[in-house]
């Protein structure tokens, strides 16, 4: 783990910074003990399916800053995610009662000649035009495999354009080939924000930064009671708002996989304390998180009262749900920290988690605090998880495992995964809003949705009857990690 360094234009990728891995097969407790021992090995696959890349994850945060524009310095195919994020942005506007606004995203359209002669002039022209058309308060430039390999000096172009246009024009280095862990793109986005947008604090405020995606507002109620105000970042923030996040009283992360770098950067550079506790999923996690929040915000007494009131409201209902769900078997596929949180939550509901395919593993977060290790907390509190597999979205492994495990229920967090359960006739649930399961109430929310899903078997039963599987019979009979090997050594952190 390296300290945040704002002098370098690029943040080191997670493999180098945190020792993160994308290949592991074993149990959750096994992974935790490997991680803690500091000698985690990565497994590489000799056969793999398509993944996501950093540029998409960087875009996912920066593209929803309401008064900024994006310039993607890439061939037009890299802009394939523009409309998807524009759609997410618009849905979020609806949920937050904001007026409908289109995302202002520009692609430099790198063509063959540019790979020969360089694309810097094209980039300059695009930035200028983006400025004229969108009148943004800042422009973020995301890089691509093509611009990275041909060696365009994007940083000097953005520096020049910053001077010319009088607004921050900021490079976000996120070439896809640089990292196997696409969440490295979040770090790139945050690095560019902390480096070029955030200003040193002038005063302290009663705001609490909440690093999140685009979920519902579950924090205002809690924080208002404590005399604080929720400030959701980065989607739906303005540039002016981001300039002042250094003045916040604390930083909360909805998901440490998302916010590990930004939380640590704000604390290391500007002294904004980060809440370093397991995320608030499941009773034990929520208790611990709430108490840590109370400690950091100096509201310990008030927090105890809130915990008591909320638990009293939730516990009887929770018992009812537990009685109905106990013994149900489930398999999970999700990103890292949110996956760990879901395991805790399902265990809390009495569900037997038979395994998990988690997209990557960070043995440590940027804050370096072992208290923030959600998987460690989950294993200690709820016991081990068998069939714990770190798999960067390899659907063939998932199809194989599901076919063996045949759980009563599958839970997925990311697109492109649910139908592997459904095709086998397994009721499958995807919840896009990670705030949905947050805190005490979240347990009930989730339990209700799970019961609905389990009860709704007609669609998957019929689908399973009529669907085809693109995997060979041979493959379905192999051990699921047949192509995982290599044990590529990862630098100890």
């Amino acid at each position, binding site marked *: 783990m390296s300290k945040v360094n704002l002098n370098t234009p690029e943040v080191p990728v997670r493999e180098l910074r945190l020792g993160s891995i994308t290949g592991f097969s074993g149990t959750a407790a096994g992974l935790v003990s490997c991680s803690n021992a500091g000698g985690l090995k990565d497994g590489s696959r*000799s*056969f*793999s*399916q*398509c*993944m*996501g*890349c950093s*540029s*998409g994850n960087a875009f996912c945060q920066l593209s929803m800053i309401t008064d900024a524009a994006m310039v993607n310095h890439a*061939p*037009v*195919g*890299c*802009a*394939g*995610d*523009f*409309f998807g994020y*524009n*759609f997410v942005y618009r849905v979020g506007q609806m949920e937050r009662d904001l007026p*409908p606004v*289109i995302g*202002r*995203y*520009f*692609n430099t*359209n790198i*063509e*063959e000649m*540019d*790979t020969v002669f360089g694309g810097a002039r*094209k980039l300059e*022209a*695009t930035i200028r035009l*983006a400025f004229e*058309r969108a009148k943004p308060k800042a422009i973020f430039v995301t890089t691509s*495999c*093509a611009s990275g*390999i041909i060696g365009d000096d994007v940083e000097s172009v953005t520096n020049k354009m910053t001077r010319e246009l009088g607004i921050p024009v900021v490079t976000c280095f996120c*070439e*896809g*080939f640089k*990292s*196997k862990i*696409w969440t490295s793109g979040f770090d790139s986005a945050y690095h560019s924000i902390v480096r070029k947008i955030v200003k040193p604090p002038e005063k302290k405020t009663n705001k609490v930064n909440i690093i999140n995606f685009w979920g519902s507002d579950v924090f205002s109620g809690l924080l208002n009671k404590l005399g604080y105000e929720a400030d959701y970042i980065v989607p739906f923030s303005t540039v002016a708002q981001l300039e002042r996040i250094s003045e916040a009283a604390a930083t909360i992360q909805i998901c440490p996989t998302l916010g590990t770098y930004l939380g640590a950067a704000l604390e290391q550079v500007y002294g904004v304390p980060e809440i370093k506790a397991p995320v608030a999923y499941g009773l034990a996690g929520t208790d611990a998180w709430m108490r840590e929040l109370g400690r950091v915000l100096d509201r310990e007494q008030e927090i105890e009262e809130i915990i008591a009131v909320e638990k009293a409201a939730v516990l009887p209902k929770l018992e009812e749900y537990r009685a109905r769900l106990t013994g149900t078997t489930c398999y999970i596929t999700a990103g890292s920290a949110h996956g760990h949180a879901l395991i805790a939550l399902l265990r809390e509901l009495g569900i037997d988690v038979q395994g998990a395919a988690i997209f990557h593993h960070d043995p440590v977060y940027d804050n370096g605090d072992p208290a923030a290790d959600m998987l460690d907390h989950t294993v200690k509190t709820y016991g081990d998880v068998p069939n714990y597999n770190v798999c960067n*979205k390899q*659907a*063939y492994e998932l199809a194989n495992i599901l076919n063996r495990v045949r759980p009563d229920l599958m839970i997925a967090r990311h697109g*492109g995964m649910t*139908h592997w359960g459904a095709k086998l006739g397994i009721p499958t649930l995807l919840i896009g809003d990670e705030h949905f399961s947050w805190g005490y109430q979240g347990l009930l929310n989730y339990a209700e949705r799970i019961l609905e899903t389990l009860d709704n078997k007609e669609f998957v039963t019929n689908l399973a009857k009529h669907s*085809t*599987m*693109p*995997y*060979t*019979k*041979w*493959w379905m009979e192999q051990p699921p990690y047949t*192509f995982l090997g290599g044990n590529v050594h990862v630098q100890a952190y």
Partner: protein
Amino acid sequence: MSKLIEQPRYSCALGVQQSVIAIHRAVPVVHAGPGCSTKIHGFLGQGEGYAGGSTIPCTNSSEAEIVFGGENKLRGVIHGAFKVIDADLFVVLTGCTSDIVGDDVGQVTREFQAAGKPVVYAETGGFKSNNYVSHDLIIKAIVEQYVDKFAADKTSVIPGLVNVFASVPYQDPYWIGNLQELKRILTGIGLTVSVLFGPESGGVEEWLSIPRAEFNIVVSAWPGLKSAQLLEAKYGTPFYHFPYLPVGGIETGRFLREVADFSSVDRAAAKAFIAEEERKFYTHIERTADFMLEFRYGLPRVFYTMLDASYAVGLAKYLLNELGILPAQTQYVVDNTPEEYRAAIVERFRTISSRRSANVEFVEDGGAIQEAIRLDKPAQRALILGSGWERDLAAELGADLLPVSVPITYRLILNCGYAGYNGGLRLIEDIYDRVLGTYR
């Protein structure tokens, strides 16, 4: 002028992975950075089909492959793909990373070809072209590296057999419905039709009969033409070219009559089929003419197309000549039409009807088109035939929007298509459904 693109409406050369997954039991093997394939899938198409989306084998090139070359990794992934994926044809496609660093993908593929495996390759590094252009490139790759090798008979022509090159799958959101209707009407005049892509096709097997066609049909402004020319040069198969999407009674009738004249089918039977289709089609137009003439609360009276060349011309002709909606002075073609085909498209808009002309501009930058339409401020109620990007523009102008171009997003499409007689009727339903939906 800068070539930047705000609001893209097509993908890069690698976008052609969607053409591959449109062939039943064919699978792309992508040799590119992580993320490319997923972004393309997210942009083009709804649903992953048999083996698209998260199934697509990919090398996910990392720094090591950039520095040391990715040929070994590709070898491993192709090898694994044969074992893991249950498919009949594998199409290796390169991305920016492998094309810039210069991996010899041909050599790696040839090793598998030499072992008798059904695998072909094409260079589709994103920066090289776009998915309209590379669509012809993969047809060429499959024909030269697969069909030539595995087709049992390449010389004896089957009378009445035709290959149809029409939509670019997924790039044309209505490709399945369009191919379905084209196959239906061509079968109706007596032909045996290979559409090669989608559920109306026999899949990889059907590709093996390509050399035996009596002739080929290209229904498109330009994508597909190079394939027909290739097959003419290779197998001596002549081709008939209809340069836009035939929609509705007039153009579909023209298309079918010309095809029948080009072919060996029984003319009288073909004529009878066309007459019967026209009778049914015009029954609907006649039945609802009073609505179109009398609906007094407002219907769109002017249209803007922001579509690829095949759609722009096809829909413009239909809207003007059969529905009475007038073209705005300037129409926009967004597919980066190669220079050599532009004059013909300009001419088609100039003579859009016997008494009316429209100008056409070729612009790929959707943001620039929207600015131009905003400045144009149509005085009448307008119909915009564009993409999901036009939602705000339409709202601002009080216009009706029918998304025909990707990104489509606001609409789920199964077998809806706008080609032919049925497509024409469907288009009327869809346009007026949106229009009437604005009244409360």
